[in-house]
């Protein structure tokens, strides 16, 4: 939790010596709280106060980083239980498990597929985050070979899964530049695993599925051994306890500032799934509710695309709705004589209009005007969706070159703009469309004539 100026002030020497270039300790404290200046600018701060400040200022859920220069992953550091309270900051990493029992060719193929996967949505390129390579064979040489294949073929992040500290040590050494996740410290092997994680400065997963108390005990042990970057695996591989356990963990971290659980959580939604659909279902629940690293057992584009879309939806900042880039969009495969509609760049407005056009079966041109993310009526009221702006969009995006007619459909809610727009766009016919997007289909069939 970020400290307030007053809280920071309590730790300062209170001599007002000005060595920090601020007139008083209090003024300095305020600037530190506002993150304008760093606490280290006060030369007289005691080591003890510094440590106390650091620990009090630590976020309740630690930010954990892994992955190399080609693909960095940051998870954790969430501050709220519900996205509407503020936002969720660090989208969960979505990774795919690779077992070293598979053939080298199969591993290479899967790595190529996952590593090369990219899908575009609302102008963003969505990708997978990496691989969890498992020493399922229990054979060290085989594991190292699998790890090498993965590292050679993809720049994505990796988690290394082995119960054997010696094997782990060798694998982490190979992958060190990728800052791999070390999976996992258990009741039996935690001391050896902690040594490895420490030696290579890698995040360490602690795994205990026998209850949160035991997970806490393990987390405390590895923290005492000097590990700061911890990831928790409570073993929730079924709907039975996933939301329940993950809610408990996050609440204890956020509301009680309970340090041993103040870390991101890792889950494996496909372990018990009998079908890809079941795996998709639990993955969807865990992306919605509090998992920070989701490891899938399968990969297919048809599974990845919906899950990456869900992640994008849930981790969108509710205060900053996604805006569509202004421009002319094709819905269906419009021809020069297809209808031309205009609406605002608020993503939900765009989606409902585009969705209705899609559903109507009448391919159309959809012109999106930059209204700074406001919906039709709000934008109109704020003067961000007026005749001038619409006319400008029509010209800017060379709409006339795409269509053979010269008529444009206005949202029914801004019918008042019709006259003005006809003046701005000489030679154009301005049609008034329906009030609600859902009536677009009927409008096209019954009323629309260019």
């Amino acid at each position, binding site marked *: 939790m970020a400290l307030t100026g007053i809280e920071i002030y309590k730790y300062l020497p209170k001599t007002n010596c000005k060595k920090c270039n601020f007139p008083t300790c209090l003024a300095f404290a305020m600037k530190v709280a506002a993150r304008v200046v760093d606490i280290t600018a006060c030369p007289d701060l005691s080591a003890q106060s510094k440590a106390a400040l650091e620990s009090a200022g630590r976020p309740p859920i630690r930010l954990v980083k892994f992955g190399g220069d080609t693909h960095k992953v940051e998870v954790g550091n969430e501050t709220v239980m519900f996205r509407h309270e503020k936002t969720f900051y660090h989208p969960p990493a979505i990774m795919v498990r690779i077992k070293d029992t598979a053939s080298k060719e199969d591993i290479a193929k899967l790595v190529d597929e996952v590593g090369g996967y990219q899908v575009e*949505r609302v102008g963003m390129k969505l990708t997978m985050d990496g691989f969890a390579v498992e020493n399922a064979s229990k054979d060290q040489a085989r594991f190292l070979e699998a790890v090498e294949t993965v590292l050679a073929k993809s720049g994505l992040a990796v988690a290394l899964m082995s119960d054997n500290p010696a094997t782990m040590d060798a694998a982490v050494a190979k992958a060190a530049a990728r800052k791999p996740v070390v999976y996992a410290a258990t009741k039996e092997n935690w001391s050896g695993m902690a040594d490895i994680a420490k030696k290579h400065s890698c995040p360490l997963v602690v795994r205990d599925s026998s209850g949160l108390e035991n997970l806490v005990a393990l987390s405390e042990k590895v923290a005492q051994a000097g590990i700061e970057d911890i990831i928790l695996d409570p073993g929730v591989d079924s709907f039975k306890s996933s939301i329940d356990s993950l809610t408990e963990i996050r609440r204890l971290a956020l509301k009680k500032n309970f340090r041993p659980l103040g870390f991101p959580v890792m889950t494996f939604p496909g372990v018990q799934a009998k079908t890809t659909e079941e795996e998709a279902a639990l993955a969807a629940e865990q992306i919605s509710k509090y998992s920070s690293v989701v490891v899938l057992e399968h990969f*297919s584009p048809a599974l990845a695309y919906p899950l990456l879309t869900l992640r994008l939806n849930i981790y969108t900042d509710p205060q900053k709705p996604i805006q569509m880039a202004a421009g002319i969009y094709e819905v269906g495969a419009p021809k020069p004589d297809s209808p031309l509609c205009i609406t605002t760049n608020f993503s939900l407005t765009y989606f409902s209009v585009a969705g209705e056009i899609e559903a109507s079966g009448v391919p159309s041109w959809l012109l999106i005007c930059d209204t700074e993310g406001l919906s039709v009526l709000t934008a109109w009221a704020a003067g961000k969706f007026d005749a001038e702006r619409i006319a400008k969009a029509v010209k800017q995006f060379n709409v006339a070159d795409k269509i053979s007619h010269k008529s444009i459909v206005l949202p029914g809610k801004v019918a008042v703009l019709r006259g003005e727009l006809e003046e701005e766009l000489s030679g154009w016919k301005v049609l008034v469309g329906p009030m609600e997007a859902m009536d677009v289909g009927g409008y096209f069939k019954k009323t629309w004539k260019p």
Partner: protein
Amino acid sequence: MAPLEAPVEKWTGKIRELKLGSGGRKTITVGGGTTLPFVKFEGAQPHRPAIAIEVQDKEPTDWSEFLVSAWGDALKNPGAWAKKAAEFGADLLYIRLASAHPEASNTGAAQAKKSASEVLSAVDLPVIFVGPDVAEKDNEVLVAVSDVAKGQRVGLGNCVEKNYKTIAATCMADGHVAIAKTPIEINLAKQLNILLSDVGLSPDSILMDPTTGALGYGLEYTYSVMERLRLAALMGDGMTSMPMICTAGEESWRQKESKATLDVPQAWGDNQERSLIWENVTAISLLAAGADILVLRHPKTVVTVKAALDKSF
């Protein structure tokens, strides 16, 4: 070590219980939760969320081939469709009187009565009837259906600000439940519940439809409005504590991710697999946000979501 103290919140409110089905018809109760969905350490969710399957009173012309092949000829007849939906594991049915839409066949009260009777005699499951979502038309067909289903406690919708009085009155007269639908906004949802209560409809006879945005098409707005409604209810607001229904199937299957089969980007993957997962992910995410009834379209999604619920409870 000392046992962990569960971080329970002291909620003062609870979700209302809502019963559908009566008069010889099977009944189902949803709601009643005293905590957030699936959070077991602090409260109870006495009734598991229910799965409704959507049935229409006319053969859909724009449905995906994957839905058409799953349902086959049943799509041609609401009674047969209803029976098949029951076989596929529906807890209740959601009957869309689509033929009444002025852009479709513009049928009226007579056809609505006929379709409703067919469905009601074909299955003994609880049923919700919704009109074509054209306010005046909805009034006409829902009043007709209300009469046919008198005493069987069906759901009637969608009740919107424009037509709530008629639907509320018919629900009160015939013992039905109103589906109160509002555009993804917490205050509008609450306001419609208040309006309905003010004309005398019991708050225990209201089901809220907060309007579903499909995955990728506004899901996050629905998700957050539902979470806020749930939280408001648990904090004691009796006008936001009605159970919620989400039309996850209809919304998902309208989108191009579910409909397109030609010129599909390679990154979208297999058409059928993606369409099914699209509906499934929309549904599961809304369950986590507090849905009490999910309306689905594909039988396979019903299986997947039911399996998830079986494990959850």
